[in-house]
């Protein structure tokens, strides 16, 4: 608990109180905390538990059930490689392998410099542009293995500016 800054705590309390009139608002609260705070560690869950009177273990169970929620901070750039059927049959496995290979991390992990997180996504609805990946919401259509390095470089450059 000590690890959580007072200000962050207030922010989370505020989010919880915003939804106090919603019936069973846990998912709503978690979604907003995830978006605002970037991740939902145990200390944050304790605050949510105090506000909502939901047991911490139950909140932890919900956080770890849904892949959208994260216990650890994600990288500055989240590379979501689509492994939906349409992308998969068009070779997206090779694309994600290439990202992993170049960034030297596994799906779900974040690079040491905190820049990139790779996540395997299930269909981002861009099937007509398969294989696709999305980086912080921006969709990269019709990828090939040799485009991967370029994409990484693009973001490395952006980060260094």
């Amino acid at each position, binding site marked *: *608990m000590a690890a959580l800054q007072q200000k962050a705590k207030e922010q989370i309390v505020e989010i919880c109180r915003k939804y106090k009139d919603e019936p069973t608002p846990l998912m709503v609260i978690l979604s907003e905390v995830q978006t605002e705070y970037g991740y939902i560690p145990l200390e944050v869950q304790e605050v949510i538990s105090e506000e909502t009177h939901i*047991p911490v*273990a139950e*909140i*932890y169970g919900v956080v770890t*059930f849904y892949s959208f929620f994260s216990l650890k901070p994600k990288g500055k750039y989240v590379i979501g490689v689509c492994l939906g059927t349409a992308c998969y049959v068009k070779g997206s496995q090779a694309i994600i392998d290439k990202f992993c290979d170049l960034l030297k991390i596994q799906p779900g992990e974040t690079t040491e410099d905190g820049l990139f997180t790779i996540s395997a996504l299930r269909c981002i609805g861009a099937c007509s542009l398969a294989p696709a990946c999305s980086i912080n919401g921006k969709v990269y259509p019709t990828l090939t293995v040799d485009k991967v390095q370029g994409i990484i470089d693009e973001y490395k450059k952006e980060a260094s500016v």
Partner: protein
Amino acid sequence: MEKKMINIKIEGQSYQVEDGLTILEAAKRCGYNIPSLCEYNKGECSKASCRVCLVEATGARGLVASCVYPVSEGMEIKISSPKAVKARRTSVELLLSNHNMNCQQCVKNGNCELLHVANITGARENAFKGVKTETTLDILGPGIMRDTSKCILCGRCIERCKKAQGIGILGFEKRGFNTIVAPAGNRSFAQAPCLQCGQCTLVCPTGALTEVSEIPLIDKAFMEGKKVIVQTAPAVRAAIAEEFGDPIGTVGTGKMAAALRRLGFYRVYDTNFGADLTIMEEANELLHRIKNGGVLPQITSCSPGWINYLEFYYPEVIPNVSTCKSPHEMMGAVIKSYWAERNGIDPKDIFVVSVMPCTAKKTEEVRPQLSHNGLRDVDAVLTTRELARLIKRSGINWDMLPEEDFDPDLLGDYTGAAVIFGATGGVMEAALRTAYFALTSKELNPVDFLPVRGLQGVKEASVDINGIIVKVAVASGMANAKKLLDDIKAGKSEYHFIEIMCCPGGCINGGGQPYVKPVFLNKEGMDILDTYREKRASVLYKEDKGRPIRQSHNNPQIKKLYEDYFKEPLSEKSEELLHTHYKARERYPEI
């Protein structure tokens, strides 16, 4: 209201059953025990998850989980259709393929429901092979341990913790094949605000949740030639016989004392002496608070699960809680002081073992506040279940044991008031008997104070003691106590004295007591889960009734102890040896 009856068929035979039953319940009443695993106590589980109780039923697509599927008029149920038999077997085989099968060494061997269904469904050896879910073994204890390699994700423990204690320390984590049951963050019980009450161990079908055994500590003490003195809590006698196949509600006092003597203990005492001593201190503490405008209501302190709850969840209420140590700790303190002095034995050579119905007692014995001159008041705590194992290990035939008494010297006598400590309301009743006498110099009449008896979660009563209306309340199970505590916190409580016991029903239903698993109790009634607590409590009230002395202040050895040693309740000496203190604890400390 008359229950509506409906007609069903099972295996082609016609039956009439109550409407609204599940197939599993209905079949049981008609004489069919459908193999089932995760189901417990009418849905105190994650519901229909294990798929071991699958049967065929008309009107349903595929097979149905009989534990949740309701019977309906005209339904035909097939338990032994080849499809159902195979499906039940495969469910079990799949569970086994993800199970840590060290059954021989498993403490649940003999009480394991998974092993039982594996046997009756005819699971084949190594039918399915593959990787196993990543596991966690939490043995930091000190009260209970968790081994996820044996967990079948039935969710009973999760529900029990929520229902009994209102906490929900356990939950499902992750999903799919990676799912485990754990405290938040897969922490150890020792690093989470767990009461270690052990209620979860009572319902776990396998060896995934159990007490941390202290039998090795005792073996070591014997090995080192220590004077190993044992004391047993009142609730143990109300249940120990169950471990040897006796019906629930069998009195085990005499045989237990006999068994302990045969196990080589230097003295075999009853914690009831400590309970009488507790009453002396606690009743006087209450009177002191009432007379001197102290913090009220006063709350009892015997239940270590409750004390854990207090320190984690209601530290504001600490001033209300009696400073009295719990009976076995008082007993330990007295053994290592008064008794040791009188017997000329160095307290360092004494090893005090408490046999308790409780796993939280294991967290209590290691509290630094409960030691004196660097020596712990109590050195080891065994649960009722562990004692049974110790007895079985020694080859003692329970049935042939004689009925014997506890050792009589110095700390041997006890009153009926002490015996009823084991049931919810018992401490209250015992304290009222003594408080009444202290204020009026007359005995409470009748001795039985019925309003605080019974298994309701919260009970209230008031007693007129010399014009003072003393209002009392009794709660068992933290979920029930919560309301009373919230009122205290809000300054709204109107009570003078509150008894709180961690486990629902009190110590007779403690987390260290024998398992009540209907699947292994074919001779008990179908409603055994509703009746066992009452049956065990009746053992205690029966013994109370039969004791020659039924008020703690009339225990001659207690009187002598005060005369010779403590002088009077709340004296300097008793404050030093018999009282303790509490402090707030962080729920999820940084690790």
